[in-house]
């Protein structure tokens, strides 16, 4: 089975006719099959409709109104047409949020993927004790993101934090360390660093599995052809890992667009919107400013952006396959 088919963004060929067993030609047997099928489908389908489709439709409707989170007896909810959309498209915070999501995707996704691949190659060697390192590299993955953010906020403390003291130490005091989370230029990079730290182990494992799936004969053949280690990596390993890489790329991209937890714990989108993300803005507008209509507008636009990315990925990957 190909990796493309497990990832949400890739085109899915649904079987024309579901192959399967004939449970019998009797009417009663047929009916039992249908009844079972619906019974089996009902719980999940109901939940999907209630908790995904209905709220999504509601978001569409709310985006055309000035719905408040807490209804007020003096100001009833009104239909306001496209006002929310017009305002959103002149909202600096929104552009900043979208920009940051893309920035995160563009910087973190390749970095993290490359880093994960490097780690996987390192621990795929025949060395003593290499499994201990695998465990260590993977361990941040099991730490809750909130805890990760809290611990790193201490390390990033501008005055006393370990990271700045370490920077001073290794540069003999020549580096003037930044204010990290309090500085508009460094706050988002700081969040990127801790996100990579936490997440890279996960992808490393997926790459490792990919590496171990590569048939040894391929390396053998390459060696016979006179390829050295480096050439083997570029000519055998990378092409063989194509599907794995695509999977890692896609999942990280989705995570980049959902970015919320670490930002909320550390900066809440500040200083001066420098760490604003779409979900942070959506939460702030909906839950803090109580502006459900506007928040829903963000949700709708956000959905279209994600949709566009999925379509682009599909087109791009189809191109690749040819």
């Amino acid at each position: 089975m190909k990796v493309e088919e497990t990832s949400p963004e890739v085109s899915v060929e649904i079987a024309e006719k579901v192959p399967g067993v004939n449970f019998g030609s009797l009417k009663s047997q047929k009916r039992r099959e249908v009844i079972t099928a619906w019974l089996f489908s009902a719980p999940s389908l109901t939940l999907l409709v209630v908790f995904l489709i209905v709220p999504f439709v509601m978001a569409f409707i709310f985006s055309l109104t000035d719905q408040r989170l807490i209804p007020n007896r003096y100001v009833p909810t009104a239909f306001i047409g496209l006002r929310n959309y017009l305002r959103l498209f002149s909202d600096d915070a929104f552009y900043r949020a979208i920009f940051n999501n893309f920035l995160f995707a563009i910087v973190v996704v390749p970095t993290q993927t490359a880093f994960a691949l490097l780690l996987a190659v390192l621990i795929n060697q025949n060395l003593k004790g290499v499994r201990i390192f695998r465990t260590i590299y993977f361990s941040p993955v099991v730490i809750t993101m909130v805890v990760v953010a809290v611990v790193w906020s201490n390390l990033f403390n501008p005055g006393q934090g370990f990271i700045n003291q370490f920077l001073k130490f290794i540069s003999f005091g020549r580096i003037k360390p930044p204010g990290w989370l309090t500085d508009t230029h460094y706050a988002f990079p700081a969040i990127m660093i801790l996100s990579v730290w936490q997440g890279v182990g996960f992808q490393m494992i997926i790459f490792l599995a990919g590496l171990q799936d590569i048939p040894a004969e391929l390396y053998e053949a390459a060696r016979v052809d006179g390829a050295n280690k480096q050439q083997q990596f570029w000519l055998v390993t990378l092409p063989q890992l194509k599907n794995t890489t695509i999977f890692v790329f896609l999942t990280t991209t989705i995570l980049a667009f959902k970015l919320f937890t670490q930002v909320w714990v550390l900066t809440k989108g500040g200083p001066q919107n420098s760490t604003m993300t779409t979900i942070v803005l959506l939460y702030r507008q909906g839950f803090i400013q109580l502006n459900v209509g506007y928040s829903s507008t963000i949700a709708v636009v956000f959905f279209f952006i994600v949709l566009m990315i999925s379509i682009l990925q599909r087109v791009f990957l189809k191109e690749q396959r040819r």
Partner: protein
Amino acid sequence: MARSKRIKVKTVMIFKNFIKYFILIALALFFLFPVVFMFVSSVKTNEMQVVSDMSSFRGFIPYGALGIKNYINVFREMHFGRFMFNSLFITSITVLAGMVFNSMLAFSLARLHFKGQRFIVSIVVALMIIPIESVVIPMLLMVNTVGWIDSYQVQIFPFIAEPFFIFLFYQFFIGIPYDFDEAAVVDGATPSMIYSRIIVPLSRPVFASVLILQSMFRWNEFLWPLMVTQGPKYRPLTVAMQQFFSQDPRLWGEIFAFASMVTLPLLILFLFFQKWFIQSVASSGIKG
């Protein structure tokens, strides 16, 4: 001649290995230092020392007044046990229900025949691109109408069915050969027997992957409980951690003790089931 060459090769080997280990250890330090820092600081009972050690390598050395005072204080000041229970309860019920219901839907889509089947499959695929984060605000208004705010069910129900997992199951089930089914049908098996006696036992890897992935997602959930929990009664660890952290004055010793208690059980669990855990994660990326 030959011998000196061999020695040379050997030295090169040793040197190469040395470099390799050097890189491995440097990276290990990068991944370990925040964790070690957290554990070490949590057992330092003098808050002044925790703060002054923050800025140097002393932060990694357990010395001075050590003890579990910070841990005791966390328990005394807040309902840590309650938060832990809430997180465990919510995660386990959601994941358990999720595995059963999602696999059941996937089963009927992949192995049974009924009208509307193809349509449902395409709906599930389409739903995969709606991030649940984007619909939280309307969902909040919705669950409020049934009085669910601040409860367990509000943190469980919305996350049971997940299109991505349904799809993982679907892919796996479609790949299972039909020989077994046929034999079973000849023996008079009903569709639900096929599910429970053939498909589920044959699908352990995909169940394991979903178990791991969904548990991780649920355990880390932050945005939704931040909105729908009020008191400590139904609050999960993530939100409790963030609120403890944003409280004034910030006592780092206790914060690290809290963080350690959140982390330690999972870390131990991971170390015990490491092989299985890593296999499941690995197979989630490779096979469907």
